[in-house]
């Protein structure tokens, strides 16, 4: 059972760093997702793990054995490609039995293995078809069967669902999770889709500009992200600039740009006069008799709720939700906003400015 360790892995092309000084440990049977905007180095990282690329510096160990210089074909790592990459000239059966055949197993054994894994993904009836005759979702299921049939105990998924339709994507992601958990396979899944990452992972690693921002369980990353970028990238959030104006042993007081004081629980590491950013997700913003004054600029029907977009007096854009059966406010109406004290998080204001700190590319 593989336990993968990356030690100071760096991948450099000329002067450009694809990934830089990555340290990461992946546990047995863990479903790990590497999440980040495009160009953050997440694909580079799994290409290094798979052996397709050899890191410029650092090492990769699987089960304590250094595999940095082991050729791809001897690593027994299943890799599922974004563009699926089923061999177009082989039928489904031959594609899936390719791995066992290459490891020197007999035709009969290979076929048995292929059948077993095709059955697991419910594709046994497609044996005699060419990849071109299958739908995108079916092709990707076959590709997953192919990767697992090679006997891999570690599966690398490189944006496996991004080429598929929205509906298929949803169904397939749960199916993949069910499957790998059933077989006890370790998975490293790369994606830029935070919904996908949230819904399937045991743990998410957030990457940006070739480095790891933070890693934790989906719930922790959503509820209490340590980093401003994570708060912005996972889910939606309102970011407001301000300054710590007071603190006691339970709460701190953040003064926004218009002078409104917002009471926030915890966050006691800050001192008075620190420049900070307040982050509150829309579902923790409510209207009240008195609070932060704002004007409604847009109301959007989201199906299961209304999204109200306001421009606050503090110059911040603040969004909140109201239930679908409530009457939404009119555009131009004045509202007073308050925030859930426990679910408000305060970050030190980044030197480069908020926009730069959360920029995706």
């Amino acid at each position, binding site marked *: 059972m593989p336990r993968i360790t990356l030690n100071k892995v760096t991948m450099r092309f000329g002067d450009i760093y694809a990934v830089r000084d990555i340290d990461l440990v992946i546990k047995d049977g863990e479903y790990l997702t590497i999440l980040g905007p495009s160009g953050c180095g997440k694909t580079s990282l799994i290409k290094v793990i798979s052996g397709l690329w050899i890191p410029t510096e650092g090492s990769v160990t699987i089960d304590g054995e250094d595999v940095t210089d082991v*050729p791809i074909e001897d690593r027994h790592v299943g890799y599922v490609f974004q563009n699926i990459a089923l*061999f177009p000239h082989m039928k489904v059966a031959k594609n899936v039995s390719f791995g066992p055949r290459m490891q020197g197993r007999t035709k009969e054994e290979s076929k048995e293995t292929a059948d077993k894994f095709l059955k697991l993904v419910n594709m046994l009836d497609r044996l005699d078809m060419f990849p071109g005759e299958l739908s995108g979702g079916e092709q990707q299921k076959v590709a997953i069967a192919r990767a697992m049939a090679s006997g891999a105990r570690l599966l690398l998924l490189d944006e496996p669902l991004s080429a598929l339709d929205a509906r298929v994507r949803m169904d397939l992601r749960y199916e993949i999770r069910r499957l790998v958990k059933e077989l006890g396979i370790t998975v490293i899944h790369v994606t830029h889709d935070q919904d996908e990452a949230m819904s399937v992972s045991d743990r998410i690693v957030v990457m940006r500009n070739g480095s790891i921002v933070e890693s934790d369980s989906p719930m922790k990353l959503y509820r209490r992200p340590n980093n401003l970028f994570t708060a912005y990238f996972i889910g939606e959030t309102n970011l407001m600039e301000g300054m710590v104006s007071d603190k006691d042993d339970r709460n701190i007081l953040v003064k926004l740009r218009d002078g409104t004081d917002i009471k926030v629980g915890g966050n006691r590491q800050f001192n008075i006069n620190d420049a900070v950013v307040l982050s509150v997700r829309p579902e923790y913003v409510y209207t009240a008799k008195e609070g932060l004054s704002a004007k409604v600029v847009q109301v959007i029907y989201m199906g299961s709720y209304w999204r109200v977009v306001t421009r606050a007096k503090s110059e911040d854009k603040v969004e909140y939700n109201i239930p679908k059966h409530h009457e939404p406010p009119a555009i131009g109406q004045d509202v007073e906003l308050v925030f859930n004290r426990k679910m408000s998080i305060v970050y030190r204001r980044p030197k480069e400015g908020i926009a730069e700190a959360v920029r995706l590319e």
Partner: protein
Amino acid sequence: MPMSLTKRIDDLSSRRDIRSGWFGIITLFFLAFIILPTVYVLIFGIMDFQNLSNMVLDDPEVMSLVWGAVFTSFSLALIVTIIDLIVGIPMAWIMVRKQFRGKKLLDTLIDMPLAFPTAALGFSIGIFWGLPVEAPVPPGALGIVASPYILIMLLHIIFTYPYMVRSLSAILEQIDQSYEEAGMTLGASRMTAARTITLPLFRAGLITGFILCFARSLSETGGTFIALITVGQADKFFTGPTLIAALKNDLVLGTTDVEAVLAVVSIILIITAIIFLLIIKFVLGRVGVPFDKVWPRWERVLSRGAVPKAKDVVSFVWLFAIVIIPSFFIFAYLLVPSPADMDWSGLLDALAYSFMVAGVVTLADIVLGVPLALYIARHKDKKLAQAVDSLVNIPLIVPTTALGFSLALFWTTQGLVTNLTVLVIMAHIAFTYPLVVRNVAGAVMEVDPSYEEAARTLGAKPFATFRTVLFPIVRSAVLAGAILAFTRSLGETGATVAVSPDANTVPVYIIGLMNTGDYYLAAVSAMVLIMVSFVFMFGLRYVIRREGGTY
């Protein structure tokens, strides 16, 4: 035990040092056996400059002959290419943008001249347009072109035409028609849209077409020489390559040192060809034609009614009157009564020899060309691979006559190879090798590397990956390259003659027959050569067409 051998290669291919070593050997072969012999005559010229200048350069009579021939070659190539361009653009447009009945047939007809060995083509053109001195003229010949220059021009237009139409339509097919449609919804007439939007995107196709036609015209020997023999001008009117052929056949300059003159002609042809093609690439690549200006009223008038129809009609008339009918005219010889005693044995010998040469050449091209193509296509970020990628084109642009002479000079002066047949084979490999490499490298570049990566992650060694995944995907490109190489070798005259006029390939045999006045047998031999080439040509089309259907 074949299984254990492939297994052993598989295991070896897993080692990086072995892989680099293998690609190193292939690159070395390419440099030492293809590139160096091709341009060796340049080195020879520098080393032996004193001798050459005494024998040739200081002889004004010889030099005027040489410069005259080279000038004829270049002016001819330029005019032919420009005419191809003018008639090729509308034809490419028809082939890509229009749907009509019989389009497949038209597609085949356009490729016809590629299947004609130029030696046969030269004969056909000579008797159709020209005024043959001795050859019997079948009924229906026009016999209206007295100028050898115009006759050769008409000949070169035929076999360069498919290259131009093919290069242009290949690019046109990749240009999304919606750009042009967007232009038209914004108020541009069809012609304005085509001219200002599609044509500028077309530049790559123009350059490829231009270079292919130009190089082919510059290099052509057999057809030109035979057409000139037919009208009795082979010892008076010369292009660069036919001057070499004439010298080799002792038609001119009986007294001077022929080898030295050959060296000078070859050097001038190679250098000017390379320089000229670099200039074309540079000029066409950078200088913008003033596409910006728009004449909405006139272009609107030209876009509607009779004008576009007339353009299409002219394209068809050109294809039939200038390209197809003159090419096929040689079959009119079937109407000429045959002489009583026909000796087939010479032709059969020549055919057997040609097939043997072409077969060995094709086999060598595949075995040694596919690895180089892989190297070029899969190491695009490496400097060496990029250099090799450009060097591969050299044998394509060097006139084959000069190539053959240079190659023979290289191996014989070193005393390494003296066997005539081996030399002919090596010369044919040199100019067909790039065809295979280009075809296969192009196909491999189209294949997403993730197929190979997937195979590797599934446990396949590099060589096993090539065998089981990459090769089956590009197999038809390999086959297409092989057929191209085979037919080119079968129809080649220039390189063979330059190595030795005694090498008994079919085109050389035909020249011999014409020199002795055996026109009827020459015509029959030409027809046989055409038929053989046709079989391969249709094989090629079958292979290429099937490619689309398998997956």
